[in-house]
């Protein structure tokens, strides 16, 4: 279980407060208005942002002071998930060998398997720049498979993709998350994504990260803060 206990982070002069527990292996969508602190929540979990109060813990380990590299977390950013000057296979190899050494035979086989799993079989020698946006996301997800960490954070990684492609990628994320049994947090603007992907929704609004609510229930009876954000959807 991931626990955020009475955590406060300074954000644009005010504080973002969070106090919640997330079950291992759960799939969670993070919804909320722009600038409310959705990415900040991920940064706190990943360790990119120090907290001023409270405690962050995974299972029995206190992570509050742990640097990003010491946390059981893999993360996909909005962009820049791959080193553009290294081949896809080399990029994936870094997940197995953080010292930059070339992977051994077993490692290479694992890389190939991960690539096939995301539908990129045989593309290991390509540079990321020669892949389409969707393929780059797939390559990054293949690396997440290799990193094999129990918490997976996705910070709107598919916002630049078209609707059909995005649906495909969300299904792939589901598949990857299931394979790893990872607690997965997906930041999104789109309630449709939330319903398609998540069991639970965490709402970030009004300086507060709310406790998770089952996705269907949240959408059927949205709280005031979410209604205000969804707004336009009510009218049609």
């Amino acid at each position, binding site marked *: 279980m991931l626990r955020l206990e009475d955590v406060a982070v300074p954000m644009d002069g005010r504080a973002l407060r969070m106090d919640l527990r997330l079950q291992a292996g759960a799939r969670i969508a993070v919804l909320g208005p722009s600038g409310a602190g959705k990415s900040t929540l991920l940064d706190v979990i990943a360790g990119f942002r120090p907290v001023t109060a409270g405690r962050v813990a995974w299972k029995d380990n206190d992570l509050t002071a742990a640097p990003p590299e010491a946390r059981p977390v893999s993360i996909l950013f909005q962009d820049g998930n791959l080193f*553009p000057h290294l081949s896809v296979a080399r990029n994936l190899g870094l997940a197995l060998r953080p010292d930059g050494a070339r992977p051994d035979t077993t490692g290479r086989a694992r890389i190939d398997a991960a690539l096939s799993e995301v539908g990129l079989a045989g593309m290991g020698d390509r540079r990321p720049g020669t892949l389409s946006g969707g393929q780059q996301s797939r390559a990054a997800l293949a690396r997440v498979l290799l990193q094999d960490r129990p918490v997976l954070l996705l910070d709107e990684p598919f916002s630049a993709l078209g609707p059909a492609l995005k649906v495909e990628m969300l299904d792939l994320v589901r598949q990857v998350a299931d394979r790893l049994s990872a607690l997965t947090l997906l930041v999104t603007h789109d309630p449709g994504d939330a319903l398609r992907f998540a069991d639970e929704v965490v709402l970030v609004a009004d300086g507060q990260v709310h406790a998770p609510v089952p996705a269907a229930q949240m959408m059927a009876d949205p709280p005031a803060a979410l209604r205000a954000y969804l707004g336009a959807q009510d009218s049609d």
Partner: protein
Amino acid sequence: MAARLVAITAALALACLTLGPVLAVLLRADGVTRLAPGDWQALRFTLWQAVLSAAFSVLCAVPVARALARQSFPGRGLLVALMGAPFILPVIVAVMGLIAVFGQAGLLNDGLRALGGPALDIYGLHGVVLAHVFFNLPLATRMLLQGWLAIPAERFRLAASLGLTRRAQFRLIELPLLRRVLPGAFAVIFVICLTSFAVALTLGGGPRATTVELAIYQAMRFDFDLGRAALLALMQLGLGLAAGIVALTVSQGSGFGIGRDRIVPRWDGRGRRGVDACVIVLAAAFLLVPLAMVVLRGLPGLALLGADTARAAGHSLAVALASTALCLAWALPLATRRGELLALMAIAISPLVLGAGLFLMLRSFVNPFSMALPVTALVNALMALPFALRILSTEAEAVRADFSRLRATLRLTQAAWLRLVFLPRLRRPIGFAAGLTAALAMGDLGVIALFADPDRATLPLQVYRLMGAYQMQAAAGAALLLLALSFALFWLFDRGGRVNAEA
């Protein structure tokens, strides 16, 4: 943590090697020796020639930059790129070229003689100023051009649609730009000219055209008056620091212009094509004819290259490569915004001051003359460091900003980060910085003059010696060799950074 340690070590080494010699100078200057009356004259001359050089460079740059900004013509991009060449052009080569055009037996005097006019003499104040304008007119032009191209095209369209007169347009659009850029350009060039040594050595000299730097050299080499040399170095240090601080405050944000090959669609260039063409042709001729003369006069001289010149060329190559390695070893760990500030220290301290300080320090341990080449390599690395940092730090910061999170989430080790990400991503700027450093070190005629004995000449010094011995053909050949080697070094390194480098 390891990276931090390396950065701190690099910073400390930099501080020791700049402040150490200064301290040595300070200690030695505290003697009974007095400045000679000629030394105050040198101070006045240094200031006066720097004022004139900066003023002429900046004033002449205005019409050139204006013409380049509002006209487009084939070869414009090449010309803008060529404006960057004087930066890596060895001073002694430029001086040879200028003598070939403006000297006693130069093109201009030939023409004047044919017309029955008076003969011009290139030696003295006007020669020094001429050479400084040759080097700094392109710099000023690039700085101005950058400002000009930064004016949004809409402004000019608005001016056209309002039917503004030329005068009104100048007052409303261009004058504010000039007011913003010119003081900075003037200040930067003024500072550069304050530390002029090689130009003054070759075209100045004598009691009426000696800079402080040249006076340091003369005090050390001819009078062997180390106390006076130290006092002069102190004077130069104060001058450099004061002017550097003034330049920094005046030139906030303007930086060294990088001539962008961008043409803002302009509406005001049409009626002015004739004037602009004249200006551009004149400026191009002023820059290119001397270089062409170096090549023309150098070709026959190549046959006269002796064993001495070959050995000097070998020394110069070794010095250039050592300087480049040293400079990069310093620049990479310090390539942050804070490191850049630190390296500004090196800008204010002139090579001759450093050289004099190192001479005083070394004297108690070894025969300083035997250290001529290592000292030259060291001082040149220090002199190139601010430029290398300027080139590297922005991009290094960008690489860190772009990939530091990915690096953390992948748990990359320090070595893997350096080998796989940091250095490969910086290949282009590293190649460019290495090229500049190598070319600058190759062509430098400064501290080597202080230390050199006949066995340890570099190629620029060898050219100077051949000139002094009136072996003009051999000097021209050696100058051409120097020119070729400097540009080749720059090209090789810069090219090495580009080949196969992918975005």
